[in-house]
C-alpha cells in the first residue's frame, strides 16, 4: 500500500477534529458535580509566610474548601520528586531540596503555590482567594546566575551554599589542558543562552476525581507522559497504588517539554478530590502559565576551542553556569549536564573535550527541558566557537566545518563525551545545503543589499542531537531514576482492522497518522483500518511518553516489534489453514503465502480464524494481539546543517530573516509532510529564541515578561518561507532506521541566525552579540562599532 504507507505524504488523520474545533482537551472535559480550583500564588519572589488566614475565604459564597500546605502535610502528602540525580565533581550528590505542592513557610518564586480554593465556579474560587490573608515577610531575592553566585548572596535554600545545586564536570581536564598548551590558535566566546518561556497554545489544566466506592482516582491532565505522572504522583507524592489511579492525557495542545513534568496542581486536585468528595477542575490562565510552567535554557558560558595551524580542532573547553530556578523540576538536573555536555562534540572529531557545569538555584520559576533541552545550548556554544575559529584562522566557515567533521567512514564514532554516534554523513548534508541555499552566490546578494543600505549576513550552523531517548541502563548509570523504553500493544480485530495502543503521547506531532502509516506498511492494512490509541493509563501498556524526539525511534520500534510478533503468530495460523509448514509461510502486503505458490490467506482471514478457532493449530492460544517493550540500544543521532540570510537596517537595528535553508538527516522518513511540519515549527521556535523571545525578571524577581504584550513569540511575519531538504543515513540500531525530527529546528536555528547576524555586523567590527538579538541590541552594537575607540 505505497500510497499510505512508509514514505507517503498522508494528510493527518487527527486534523479533521483539530481544524474544526472538535478536539477533546482537558478543559473540554466536565465531570458530574464538578468543582473548580483556583491556586493562590505568591506575588513575591522570596518571602517568609508569617501568617496564612483562610477563615474568611472558607466562608465566601460558593466555596467548598480551602486548603494550605499544612493540610497536605498533615495528610502526609510528599513533595514533587526529582527524576534525576547528578553528582558533584567530588562525587557527592547534588543538593536536592523539597518541592512542596503547596508551600508552608516560605515562597521562593513569583507564582509559587500558597493555597488552593475549591468552589462551585471559577469566579467564586478566585473571589474567595482574594480573602485569604497572607502575611509575607519579604526576603532579598536572587534572580540571575551572577546574583546567585555573588559572595554573600541571599540563599534560596539554606542547605545550598552559594546557591549551588551541583558543580559537575565531564571529560579529562588534564588532557584537555595539555591539548590547549599545544594550540596554534584559540577561539574564545562568552555567551548567554537566553531563558525562554514555553508557551504551548493550550495552557495546563487538570481534573481530579475520586470514586469512594472503589477507591479509584482519575486525573485528567495536560501531560506528554501520563504513565510517568501516574508513577510520580501515585507512588511518590500521594501514595496511591497504581491500580487505583488512572491518568488520562487527552488531546494536548503542544508541550515542547513543558508538559513532561509532574506539577503541583495535578497532585492538589487529585488529593483534594477525595477530601471534598467531588471532581475538581483547575485550568491555568495564560498569566499563570507564564509564572508556573517550567522555563527553558538560561545558561551563561565561557568556551574555548584550540586549533592547530590548519584549522583542525584540537580541544574544546566549556565552562557553563546554569540557572535551575527555585526548585528542581522533574528532569531539571540532567538538562545542563547529560543532555548538554555530552553533545559538545557536535559534528566534529575534536579529540578532547572538557566541560564543567555549575547549576544554581534562584528565586525564579523552575527551569527544565524545553524543545531541544540542552542540545540547542550545546549547539550554540559549539557553532559560535566554530565561526570564531574560522574568523581567527581565516578559513571559510563552510570549509572549516568540512575539515573538522567526523568523516563518513569513521562511524561508529566514539566521542570524548560519552556518546557513540552510530552513523552520519555530515559532508553530504553540508554539500546539499550549500547548494540549496546558494552559498556560492551570497557575496553578490550582500553587495546588492549594501546598495539598498542594508547589511546582509549569511549564517551557517551544523548540529547534532541525541534523540530516541534512551537506553535505560545507560541513563540509569548517569543518574536517571527511570527507564526510558517504550511500549506498544497491537490488537488485530477479528475482521482484520487494527488498534494500536502506544505508550507514546501525541500533543501535536501527528502520531495518529505516522504510526498508522507504519502499521499500513508492516501489516498491509489500509489507513482507515488502523487507529492509534494513546494517553490513557487504563488503556495503554506502561509507557514513558513523548519528549526528546523519541516517539518514532523508541515507540515506533516497540510497535514494529509487536507487529512482528503478530506476524509470527499469524504464520502459525496460516500454516495450519494452508496445510503448509510454518517455515514456508511468507508475509507481505497483508497476505500470508506459501512461498513460491499462489496459496495464501489474507490477514483478515487469519485474524478471523484466531478469534473463531474452529479450525486452528493445536496448542496455540486464540486471539491476535501482541505487546512489546522496546529499550533502545543507543541514542539516535539526527544531524544537519542550516543556512540563513538576514538583512539589517543599520539606522534602526531592525532585522529581517530573508531566507532559511535546512538539510537534515533524520534517518528513514515515514511521512515527509509531517517531518517538514516539525522542521518548520522547530525553526520558527529557534528563530524566536534568536531574535524575539527572552524571559526578563527585574532585580526583585518580578516577571516583567508576564504576558504577550511583553514576551514576544515569533509570528508568521517574522519568518521567511523555509526551504527544507533531507539526507538519509538510516539509524543502525533500531528496526525502523529512524532517528527523530521533533527538536532539530529549535536546536540548529538559533546558532544559524546568530551566525548570520554576526556575519552581517562583522565588517563593522562587531564580534559578539547575545540572544535575543533585538533591534536595540543590534543598533547599539552598530553604534559602538562606529564610535572610535579611545586611545
Amino acid at each position: 500500500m505505497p500510497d499510505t504507507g512508509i514514505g507517503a505524504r498522508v494528510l493527518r488523520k487527527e486534523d479533521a477534529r483539530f481544524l474544526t474545533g472538535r478536539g477533546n482537551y482537558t478543559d473540554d472535559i466536565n465531570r458530574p458535580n464538578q468543582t473548580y480550583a483556583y491556586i493562590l500564588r505568591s506575588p513575591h519572589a522570596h518571602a517568609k509566610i508569617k501568617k496564612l488566614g483562610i477563615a474568611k475565604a472558607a466562608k465566601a459564597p460558593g466555596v467548598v474548601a480551602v486548603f494550605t500546605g499544612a493540610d497536605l502535610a498533615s495528610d502526609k502528602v510528599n513533595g514533587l520528586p526529582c527524576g534525576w540525580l547528578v553528582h558533584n565533581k567530588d562525587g557527592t550528590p547534588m543538593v536536592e531540596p523539597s518541592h512542596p505542592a503547596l508551600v508552608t513557610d516560605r515562597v521562593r518564586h513569583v507564582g509559587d503555590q500558597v493555597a488552593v480554593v475549591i468552589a462551585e465556579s471559577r469566579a467564586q474560587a478566585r473571589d474567595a482567594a482574594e480573602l485569604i490573608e497572607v502575611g509575607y515577610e519579604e526576603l532579598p531575592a536572587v534572580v540571575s546566575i551572577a546574583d546567585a553566585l555573588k559572595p554573600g548572596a541571599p540563599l534560596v535554600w539554606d542547605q545550598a551554599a552559594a546557591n549551588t545545586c551541583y558543580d559537575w564536570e565531564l571529560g579529562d581536564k588534564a588532557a584537555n589542558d595539555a591539548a590547549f598548551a599545544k594550540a596554534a590558535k584559540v577561539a574564545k566566546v562568552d555567551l548567554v543562552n537566553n531563558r525562554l518561556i514555553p508557551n504551548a497554545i493550550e495552557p495546563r489544566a487538570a481534573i481530579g476525581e475520586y470514586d469512594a466506592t472503589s477507591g479509584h482516582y482519575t486525573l485528567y491532565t495536560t501531560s506528554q507522559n501520563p504513565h510517568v505522572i501516574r508513577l510520580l504522583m501515585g507512588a511518590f507524592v500521594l501514595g496511591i497504588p497504581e491500580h487505583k489511579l488512572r491518568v488520562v492525557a487527552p488531546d494536548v495542545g503542544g508541550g515542547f517539554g513543558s508538559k513532561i513534568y509532574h506539577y503541583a496542581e495535578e497532585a492538589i486536585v487529585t488529593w483534594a478530590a477525595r477530601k471534598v468528595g467531588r471532581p475538581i477542575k483547575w485550568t491555568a490562565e495564560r498569566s499563570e502559565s507564564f509564572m508556573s510552567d517550567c522555563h527553558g535554557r538560561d545558561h551563561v558560558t565561557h568556551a574555548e576551542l584550540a586549533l592547530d595551524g590548519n584549522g583542525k580542532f584540537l580541544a574544546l573547553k566549556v565552562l557553563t553556569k546554569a540557572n535551575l530556578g527555585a526548585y528542581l523540576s522533574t528532569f531539571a538536573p540532567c538538562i545542563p549536564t547529560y543532555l548538554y555536555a555530552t553533545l559538545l562534540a557536535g559534528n566534529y572529531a575534536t579529540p578532547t573535550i572538557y566541560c564543567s557545569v555549575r547549576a544554581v538555584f534562584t528565586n525564579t520559576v523552575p527551569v527544565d527541558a524545553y524543545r531541544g533541552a540542552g542540545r540547542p545550548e550545546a549547539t550554540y556554544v559549539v557553532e559560535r566557537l566554530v565561526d570564531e575559529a574560522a574568523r581567527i584562522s581565516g578559513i571559510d566557515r563552510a570549509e572549516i566545518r568540512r575539515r573538522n567533521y567526523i568523516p563518513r567512514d569513521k562511524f561508529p564514532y566514539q566521542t570524548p563525551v560519552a556518546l557513540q554516534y552510530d552513523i552520519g554523513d555530515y559532508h553530504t548534508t553540508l554539500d546539499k545545503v550549500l547548494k540549496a541555499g546558494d552559498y556560492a552566490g551570497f557575496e553578490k546578494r550582500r553587495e546588492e543589499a549594501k546598495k539598498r543600505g542594508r547589511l546582509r549576513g549569511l549564517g551557517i550552523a551544523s548540529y547534532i542531537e541525541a534523540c530516541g531517548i534512551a537506553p535505560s541502563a545507560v541513563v540509569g548509570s548517569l543518574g536517571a531514576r527511570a527507564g526510558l523504553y517504550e511500549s506498544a500493544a497491537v490488537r488485530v480485530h477479528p475482521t482484520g482492522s487494527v488498534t494500536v495502543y502506544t505508550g507514546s503521547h501525541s500533543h501535536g506531532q501527528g502520531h495518529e497518522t505516522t504510526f498508522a502509516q507504519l502499521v499500513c506498511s508492516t501489516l498491509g492494512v489500509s489507513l482507515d483500518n488502523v487507529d492509534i490509541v494513546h494517553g490513557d493509563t487504563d488503556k495503554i501498556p506502561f509507557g514513558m511518553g513523548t519528549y526528546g524526539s523519541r516517539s518514532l525511534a523508541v515507540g515506533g520500534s516497540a510497535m514494529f516489534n509487536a507487529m512482528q510478533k503478530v506476524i509470527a503468530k499469524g504464520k502459525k495460523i496460516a500454516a495450519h489453514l494452508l496445510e503448509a509448514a510454518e517455515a514456508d509461510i511468507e508475509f507481505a502486503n497483508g497476505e500470508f503465502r506459501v512461498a513460491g505458490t499462489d496459496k495464501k490467506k489474507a490477514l483478515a482471514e487469519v485474524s478471523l480464524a484466531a478469534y473463531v478457532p474452529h479450525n486452528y493449530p493445536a496448542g496455540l492460544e486464540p486471539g491476535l494481539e501482541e505487546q512489546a517493550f522496546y529499550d533502545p540500544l543507543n541514542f539516535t543521532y539526527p544531524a544537519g546543517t542550516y543556512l540563513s540570510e538576514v538583512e539589517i537596517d543599520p539606522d534602526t537595528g531592525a532585522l529581517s530573516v530573508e531566507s532559511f535553508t535546512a538539510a537534515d538527516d533524520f534517518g528513514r522518513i515515514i511521512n515527509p509532510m509531517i517531518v517538514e511540519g516539525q522542521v518548520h515549527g522547530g525553526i520558527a521556535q529557534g528563530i524566536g529564541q534568536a531574535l524575539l523571545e527572552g524571559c526578563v525578571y527585574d532585580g526583585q524577581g518580578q516577571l516583567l515578561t508576564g504576558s504577550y504584550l511583553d514576551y514576544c513569540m515569533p509570528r508568521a511575519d517574522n519568518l521567511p518561507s523555509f526551504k527544507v531538504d533531507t539526507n538519509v543515513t538510516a539509524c543502525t540500531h533500531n528496526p525502523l532506521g529512524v532517528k527523530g525530527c521533533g527538536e532539530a529546528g529549535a536546536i540548529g536555528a538559533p546558532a544559524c541566525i546568530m551566525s548570520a547576524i554576526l556575519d552581517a555586523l562583522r565588517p563593522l567590527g562587531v564580534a559578539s552579540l547575545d540572544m535575543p538579538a533585538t533591534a536595540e541590541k543590534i543598533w547599539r552594537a552598530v553604534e559602538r562599532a562606529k564610535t572610535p575607540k579611545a586611545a
Partner: protein
Amino acid sequence: MYDFNYHRPKSLADAAKLLGGSEEAKLVAGGMTLIPTLKQRLARPSDLVDLGGIGELKGIRREGNALVIGAMTPHAEVASSPEVKKAIPALAALAEGIGDPQVRNQGTIGGSIANADPAADYPAAVVGLGATVITNKRKIAADDFFKGLFETALQAGEIVTAVSFPIPEKAAYAKFPNPASRYAIVGVLVAKTGGGARVAVTGAGPSVFRLKAAEEALAKSWSAAALGGLKVPQTGLNSDIHASAEYRAHLVGVMAKRAVQAAG
C-alpha cells in the same frame, strides 16, 4: 473579572445618563484595553456602559475640508474606507497598522484616544493632523486633548462622539512597532498643512507630543534632509525592557525622516 451592571443604551443621551448614574461607571467602546484589564481584575467598575448600540457614533463622512470619523468606528473600517484613503491616506495606513485583525475589527478610534495609551497609534494622527475631538459637550483641539499618561481633557460624564481631521496637503505615519505587542515603540506622524508642518510622536514619551524643532525645520523645507541635524533629547522619554530612552530618541529622528520621505 468582578461583577458589574451592563448597559447597552441606544442613544448618546441615555449613555450620558447611565454614565452619570454612578461614580464607578465606565464606558466601553471596543474594549480592547478595558476587557483585559477587567479580566485581570485590575479595575472594578460598578457599571459598564457599552457604546456599541449607538448608531450616531459610527461612520465616516466628509464635511467640507475635513474628514469626520465617528467615535465607534472600528480601525478596520478606517483602514479600508475609500473616503479615508482618498482624503488622508496616512490615516488609513495608520489604522491598518494597529494591532492585529481582531483588534482592528473591534477596537475604535474613540476608545483609543479616550484611553490615551502612550504607545497607541491614533494619538499621533489626532495631534499630527491637528484634529478636533468632538464630545457630547464640546469640541476640544487636539493639542489640548492629551494631558499625560492615560490622561485626557475629558471630564466626568463626557463622551467622545467623533474626531474631525482637517485634510492635509500631505501626511505620512512611520512606526517602529514593539515586536511583541505591535504597539508603537515610536510612531511619528508628519503632516504638511496650509499652516505649515506638524510632527506628532507617539510611543516615545508618557503621552503623544509635538516635535517643534522638526516642525520648524519642515516648515522651511519639506524634506527628509531638513531633518538631518535633528537631535531629539532623551530626557523624559520612556525607558523599558523593549527600548531605552536613548534608543527611542534615536528612533524618533529616523521615523520622522522616513515619514517625510513616505509623504513625498
